[in-house]
């Protein structure tokens, strides 16, 4: 028996399926996705941790991407693996308890994805209803072309258990899907976002960026990442260069959402410096583009793109510093 007719979707062009699926859960819970997804801003690069998946996120809480994505909210998540005997049982149980499962899939097997029968790619969708008798599930995918509707169980199972073999464009392929799904507890309702709560988050973010002892996070981590990327290119290490495209998506998406939120709050609260700080943060998101795209196009001849990667990562670091100075100015006015 169906329990839901449909769920709302939310999308911004810089986000990945990690943000868009969590946004769908937030909407279903009555939360404003931008307010929640855009509250935190950080840099974190974990060498050796990057997986070729659209939803890769460098976790500050090991194994918990949603808690890592939302450090100022009591949200939690854990990866689970479906049982072979009754693969839909856990999803059914989660739905019965009011939780929306976020399911890992290989786009190659999904009829509504452009990659169908073309490119293997690890992706996330929300399953929000199961019609066991009809042999279908209802799924939501906000990534263009957005889809909300039925999916035959047989297609879901193919996508959900795919080996996701490595493609020539290996940014999101080569990591087995293995029947994984993300069991998310949002822990809401959340307190309203006002100037005091935002300022508290901005101060915590700033402390994270300023932590000079951090190896893989903050401005020190960004500097190390930039150096490692250029060194990898100079050494002809195509695998590490290629990885920058995958890794950078999460950082780019978070910066874009954080910047948009600051701009929105700055305008709503009539704090021009906050709106301007938001724009500075958005610019850092845009400065990720040439880093990611240069790495992606240059992976075939990494040494040839080393100089450009140095140039683009230096601009990226400068962009982060400028944004943090602007945020510091804005916090003083909140």
């Amino acid at each position, binding site marked *: 028996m169906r329990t839901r007719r449909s769920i709302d979707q939310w999308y911004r*062009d810089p986000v990945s399926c990690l943000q868009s699926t969590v946004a769908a859960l937030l909407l279903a819970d009555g939360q404003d996705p931008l307010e929640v997804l855009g509250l935190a801003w950080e840099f974190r690069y974990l060498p050796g941790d990057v997986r070729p998946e659209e939803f890769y996120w460098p976790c500050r809480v090991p194994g918990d991407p949603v808690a890592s994505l939302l450090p100022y909210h009591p949200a939690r998540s854990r990866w689970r693996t479906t049982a072979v005997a009754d693969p839909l049982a856990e999803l059914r149980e989660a739905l019965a308890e009011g939780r929306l499962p976020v399911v890992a899939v290989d786009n190659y097997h999904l009829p509504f994805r452009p990659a169908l029968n073309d*490119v293997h790619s690890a992706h996330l969708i929300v399953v929000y209803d199961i019609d066991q008798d009809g042999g279908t599930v209802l799924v939501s995918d906000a990534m263009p*072309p957005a889809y909300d509707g039925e999916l035959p169980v047989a297609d879901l199972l193919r996508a959900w258990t795919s080996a996701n073999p490595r493609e020539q464009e290996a940014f999101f392929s080569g990591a087995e899907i293995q029947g994984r799904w993300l069991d998310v507890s949002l822990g809401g309702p959340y307190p309203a976002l006002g100037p005091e709560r935002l300022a508290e988050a901005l101060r915590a973010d700033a402390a994270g960026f300023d932590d000079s002892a951090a190896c893989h996070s903050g401005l020190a981590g960004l500097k190390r990442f930039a150096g490692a990327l250029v060194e990898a290119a100079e050494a002809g290490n195509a695998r590490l260069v290629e990885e920058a495209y995958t890794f950078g998506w999460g950082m780019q998406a978070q910066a874009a959402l954080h910047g948009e939120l600051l701009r929105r709050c700055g305008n709503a609260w009539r704090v021009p410096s906050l709106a301007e700080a938001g724009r500075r943060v958005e610019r850092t998101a845009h400065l990720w*583009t*040439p880093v990611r795209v240069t790495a992606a196009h240059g992976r075939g001849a990494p040494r040839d793109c080393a100089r450009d990667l140095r*140039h683009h990562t230096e601009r990226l670091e400068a962009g982060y510093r400028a944004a943090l100075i602007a945020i510091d100015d804005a916090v003083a006015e909140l």
Partner: protein
Amino acid sequence: MVRSESRSLVRPAPAWPHRTAEGHHLLDLAGHRNNVGATAPDHLGAGAFNIWGNSFPAGELPSGRPVLVDGVPFDLPVCGAAAPDNVRADGQFIEVAPARYDWLYVLAAAERRVEDEIAFHFTDGSVDFEPLRLSDFWAAPAVFGESAAVVTEVMHYPLHVQADVPAMLWCQRVPVTRRAVLRAARLPRNPAVHVFAATLREAGLDMAGVADLESAEG
């Protein structure tokens, strides 16, 4: 996301001279084009706008003819012949007819959002960097306030034509703030930037510097 619908600000126009009577200079990019950004359905595999081999549907672009967008004339190259149809930014140095200009207009798009710089070189030896901002071409809104010159109905993939994913061709402008005679524009080294056509607009004739403009034009 942007809804997929056939939409275009492009208007057909007669063949443009290199410099129009209204003071627009159409840049000749023929020697700089280095990327296939639009494809015909029978050459989908030639598309290389982004890392995934997506491309504009050539049939939905005003290919190989003069057009007017936002009152600005452009010369679009022939698209869909599996030959380079746009300039992927790689530091190209594009010489222009020396004159005083107010704006550089481009028909362009980006592989994800871009904020970069164009370097303007002037005859007096000065150089200015001005912002080049382009929104994503892949089903994205105009986050930098561009005009959507063309919103296609479909997106080309290497092996198929995809409905409901529009490709966006933006009409963007870059200010030439220095009141001096421009001689060249240098694109950034940024493979996410794709320029299909570009036109410079002369400084208003009612503004200071008319004498210099006339002098520059000989």
